[in-house]
C-alpha cells in the first residue's frame, strides 16, 4: 500500500508540468559510495539537485543536431567525436536512449538546454534506488539484477519497467551513461606503478578502491567509463542531464 502510493507519487513527479522538461528534484543527503578514493571512507555528501527522469532520446538528440549543425555526423571535428559518432543514425527507435555519442557531444547537448551532466556521486545516489527504496543495494537479489546493466537484458530495459522511488527511469538500462567527472573515477591507469608518479602528477592522493567487492556492476560501470576518452562513442553508451538547484 505504502509502496503503491510512493510509486503513484513518483509517477506524478515524473509527468507533472512542474517538473519542466522531465527533471525531478532529488533531495540531497549523505551517501555511502561504492567508489572510494585514497584516504576516504566512501561517504559522500550529495547536495540537492535535479536530474532528468530518463536518458536523452534519439529524437531529442536529432533535434539538437538540427539546431546545432556543427554536431552533425559529417561535420563534427575529430577532437570532439570518434568515427563511431552517431554511427547508428537514424535510430530504429527514436524514443530509445541516444547512443554513439561522445562526452563532448553530450556535454554540449546538456548545456544547450541550460543543464549539465550529473557527476558520478549524483548518478550513483539516484541509481541506488528501486521502486520502493531509496537505497536497494543491500538487497542481494536486486544487486544481482544490476549485473545486466548495459545489456538488452538490463532490468530497466524491460517493457513496463517502473521508475525508481525518485521518479527516475532507466538508470539500469541497456545503455550505460556518461557522467561529468567520468575521467577521474580512476587514476590514469598508465601512470600507476610509477615510483612517486601519483604524488608528483597530482595535487594530493588519487588511489581508488571499492567499498563493496560484491558491487560488481558498479565496478564494471566505473571501469568502462574510465576507459573512455571524451571523444569516444559506444553503441551502448548514452547520457542524461542534470541541473543544480539554487
Amino acid at each position, binding site marked *: 500500500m505504502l509502496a503503491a502510493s510512493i510509486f503513484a507519487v513518483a509517477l506524478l513527479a515524473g509527468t507533472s508540468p512542474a517538473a519542466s522538461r522531465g527533471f525531478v528534484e532529488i533531495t540531497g543527503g549523505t551517501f555511502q559510495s561504492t567508489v572510494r*578514493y585514497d584516504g*576516504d571512507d566512501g561517504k559522500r*555528501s550529495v547536495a540537492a539537485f535535479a536530474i532528468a527522469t530518463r536518458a536523452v532520446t534519439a529524437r531529442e538528440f536529432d533535434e539538437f543536431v538540427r539546431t546545432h549543425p556543427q554536431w552533425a555526423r559529417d561535420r563534427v*571535428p*575529430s*577532437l*570532439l567525436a570518434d568515427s563511431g559518432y552517431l554511427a547508428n543514425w537514424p535510430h530504429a527507435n527514436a524514443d530509445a536512449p541516444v547512443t554513439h555519442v561522445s*562526452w*563532448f557531444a553530450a*556535454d*554540449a547537448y546538456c*548545456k544547450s538546454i541550460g543543464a*549539465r*551532466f550529473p557527476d558520478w556521486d549524483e548518478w550513483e545516489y539516484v541509481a541506488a534506488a528501486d521502486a520502493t527504496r531509496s537505497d536497494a543495494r543491500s538487497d542481494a537479489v536486486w544487486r544481482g539484477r544490476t549485473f545486466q546493466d548495459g545489456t538488452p537484458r538490463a532490468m530497466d530495459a524491460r517493457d513496463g519497467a517502473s521508475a525508481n522511488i525518485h521518479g527516475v527511469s532507466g538508470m539500469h538500462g541497456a545503455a550505460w551513461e556518461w557522467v*561529468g*567527472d567520468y*575521467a*577521474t573515477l580512476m587514476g*590514469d591507469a598508465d601512470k600507476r606503478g610509477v615510483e612517486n608518479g601519483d604524488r*608528483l*602528477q*597530482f*595535487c*594530493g*592522493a*588519487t588511489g581508488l578502491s571499492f567499498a563493496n567487492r560484491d558491487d560488481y556492476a558498479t565496478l564494471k560501470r566505473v571501469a568502462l567509463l574510465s576507459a573512455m576518452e*571524451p571523444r569516444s562513442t559506444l553503441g551502448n553508451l548514452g547520457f542524461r542531464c542534470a541541473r543544480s538547484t539554487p
Partner: protein
Amino acid sequence: MNFLLRSIAAVAMLLVAPMSAIAAPPALPGDSVYQVEASVVDQDGRAYAWQALRGRPQVVTMFYAHCHLMCPLIIASGKSLQGSLDPRQREELGFVSITLDPARDTPAALLEVAQMHRLDDHWRLLRPGDADVRTLAAALGVRYRAQPDGTFNHTSVLILLDRDGRIVARSEVTDLTPDPRFVATVREYLTGASAPGSN
C-alpha cells in the same frame, strides 16, 4: 580529359585558397583544442572566447591558486621554460594557465598570482565559466577531481599548442624546471614555426 583537368584545377584551387584567403581565417583543424566552445576571463578582467587564443603558439596548463604543492611548481616550470628561450622565441610564445577553481580564482585572485610570480604580459591566467572548466580539461586531457577539503587532484602538465590549437607536445611537471626534452621540442618548434614561409 577535360573533366580530369577541371578536377585537378579544382583541387589546386582548394589547396591554394586557404593560403590566399587573408580576410577569412582558414578552417580550424578538426583536432584543434579550440574546437570546444568556452568563455574565459583573464587576470585583467578581460572576457573573451577561448578560441581567441588562436593565432600564436601557446604553452597551456591547468592549475588553481590555493594549491600549495604542485601549482607553484607548474608556474615555476613554465617560467623556467620561458627563461630558456631566445628573445625572438620569447616574443612568439604565449603562456596560458587555466584555473580549475573558478569559484575562488576570481580575476583579482589570478592577478595576485601573476604579480606574486612576476609573470610578464605573455602570460594569461584564465578563469573559465563554471560549466566550461570540465570541457576545457577534457579537450586538454587534464583529469581533475575536487576534494571535500577544497583542494583538487589534477594532472600537472605543460602542453605546447601550435597557432591553430593542435597539441604539439605535452610534458608532465615533476620539478621546478621542465623536462629538457620538452624544452628542446618547444625551441625547435618555435624556430621552425617562425621561419619565413612555414607554419
